[in-house]
């Protein structure tokens, strides 16, 4: 990990700027899948997320990044189990919420209100048999029972406008929307209650580059306007380098490197980070510089058979 940061900092804080205010602190999280044999999906991971920050979580399939995200949101279902670790949300009003201890109604009230999530494969995460409107209303019915129908409609229209979808689409069904629009609706839904943290699990993976760029721009703009923090999960390291403030690189359940995007790009400390970086040929760099350098044999680092 970084050698330049002051050692007094907690482990999950590497690369953060001075004066950054933490919003979510996760320390020593371990998660296992209790199957035989037991799979250690996340091993002793510590992370600090600051207000208004985009924290990139990079890693390949099977590295535990989605499991970690689910763990942060108390979404794990058996056989997955968090065996150790603390998760604390530092609420806007000054309270600290011990996420790990929440259950039942308290947990239900916490989710989406404080921490919301844009799920992987958001293309298929919408309910196909009810309208967009009904799904947005669902959020309000659960969390803001006092809202009138008019207020709900008003807020839903606002949300769609915010993410760049025509509010006329409220009565549409998922199949009537393009992939990019569905993705935007998912983001609108995650924004519905003004959360302080949004976890985005591969939000743009299935999209074309031009559409992806539009969505990224939207996320950046909303963050500037609304000030939420983002945990952005993807395998696309060049994209993370472009948009995130800090990046955590995961390999086989561990965070092997955590630092500011600048530092990761300029001086990757871990071998795996260097390997990931080298996996993406530069668009404009010298031609063929990387090709044929690596040879063409299979290398098993980070690969799951």
């Amino acid at each position, binding site marked *: 990990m970084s050698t330049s940061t002051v050692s007094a900092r907690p482990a999950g804080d590497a690369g953060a700027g001075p004066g950054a205010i933490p919003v979510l602190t996760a320390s020593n999280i371990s998660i296992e899948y209790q199957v035989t044999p037991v799979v250690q999906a996340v091993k002793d991971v510590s992370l600090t997320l600051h207000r208004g920050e985009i924290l990139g979580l990079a890693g390949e399939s099977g590295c535990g990044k989605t499991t970690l995200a689910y763990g942060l949101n108390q979404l794990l279902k058996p056989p997955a189990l968090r065996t150790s670790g603390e998760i604390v949300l530092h609420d806007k009003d000054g309270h600290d919420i011990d996420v790990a201890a929440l259950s039942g109604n308290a947990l239900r009230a916490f989710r989406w209100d404080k921490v919301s999530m844009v799920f992987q494969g958001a293309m298929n995460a919408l309910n196909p048999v009810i309208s967009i409107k009904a799904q947005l209303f669902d959020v309000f019915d659960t969390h803001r029972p006092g809202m009138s129908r008019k207020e709900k409609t008003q807020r839903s229209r606002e949300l769609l406008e915010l993410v760049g979808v025509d509010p006329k689409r409220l009565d549409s069904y998922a199949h009537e929307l393009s992939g990019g629009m569905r993705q935007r609706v998912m983001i609108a839904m995650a924004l519905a209650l003004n959360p302080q943290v949004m976890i985005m699990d591969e939000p743009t993976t299935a999209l074309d580059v031009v559409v992806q760029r539009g969505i990224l721009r939207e996320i950046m703009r909303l963050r*500037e306007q609304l000030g939420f923090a983002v945990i952005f999960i993807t395998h696309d390291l060049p994209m993370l380098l472009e*948009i995130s403030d800090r990046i955590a690189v995961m390999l086989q359940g561990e965070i092997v490197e955590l630092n500011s995007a600048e530092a990761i790009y300029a001086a990757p400390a871990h071998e795996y980070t260097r390997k990931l970086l080298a996996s993406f*040929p530069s668009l404009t760099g010298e031609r063929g510089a990387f090709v044929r350098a690596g040879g063409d044999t299979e290398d098993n680092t980070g690969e799951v058979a």
Partner: protein
Amino acid sequence: MGALEVRNLTKDFVIRNGFKKTSLRAVNDVSFTLEPGKTIAIVGESGSGKSTVARMIAKLETPSSGEILLDGTPSAQRGASLAKYRHDVQMVFQDPFASLNPFHSIRHHLERPLRIHKVARTQKDVDAAVEELLTRVNLTPAKVFAEKRPHEMSGGQRQRVAIARALAPGARFLIADEPVSMLDVSIRLGVLNLLARLQREENLGVLYITHDLATARHFSDEIIVMFRGNIVERGPSDDVILNPQHEYTKLLLSAAPDPKNQGKLRDEVRNELASTATASGEATAVRDRFGTAGL
């Protein structure tokens, strides 16, 4: 050895909507020549028609008009001459998890094309050919890999099997439709390097269909940019990427993530918000013109 030539290829799909029939032109007047030992990349977004071109060349789709010529002779759509065409032209699919049969061993996957195309007849010849194929795609020890089943292999290894299978009939041209997009990033280059080596050492012609501009540039001699069924730009790969002429190519390039642009998007967004000129910037204007806004 001759080339694989595509002349004025066009494909219309009929869309039925109740009693109404409309047709959609997926590919419009596409021509190019793939020489042995060369790689041509076709790049474009989903719906650009790039996969349809690949499927027509692999004879999985019948062109509405236009011709595909192999060594100067038009290729047939059925019968014995199609089988002959398939000796020479083979396809590698995007998803190595779906394109291999989970019930069968790798040996079975490679034996079938060897026998069907009569490359090897006796069991001894077949066994030798299977081993040779696996060695060519760097799956060694070949004897061990031949007995495995797809689930025992990683995505990269499976895709190598798919490449070996395509080579089995003695193919001179390989149509690779997004061969690495389903693979983990750290093994993508290995598979692409394998294709590059085969192209170089065995004089294989490769048609590389992709949406990834960076790998297209590094692994191909020529790039063809498709937009809505039409070729909008083509040329030597460095020219297309470093000096794009068409607006759509420029838009694609500007949308590709580049770690060098650290914080650029953030600053752009900040400036945009600061100047309150929320009205879309230049990129949106181009996007509007190409009708992909709101996609």
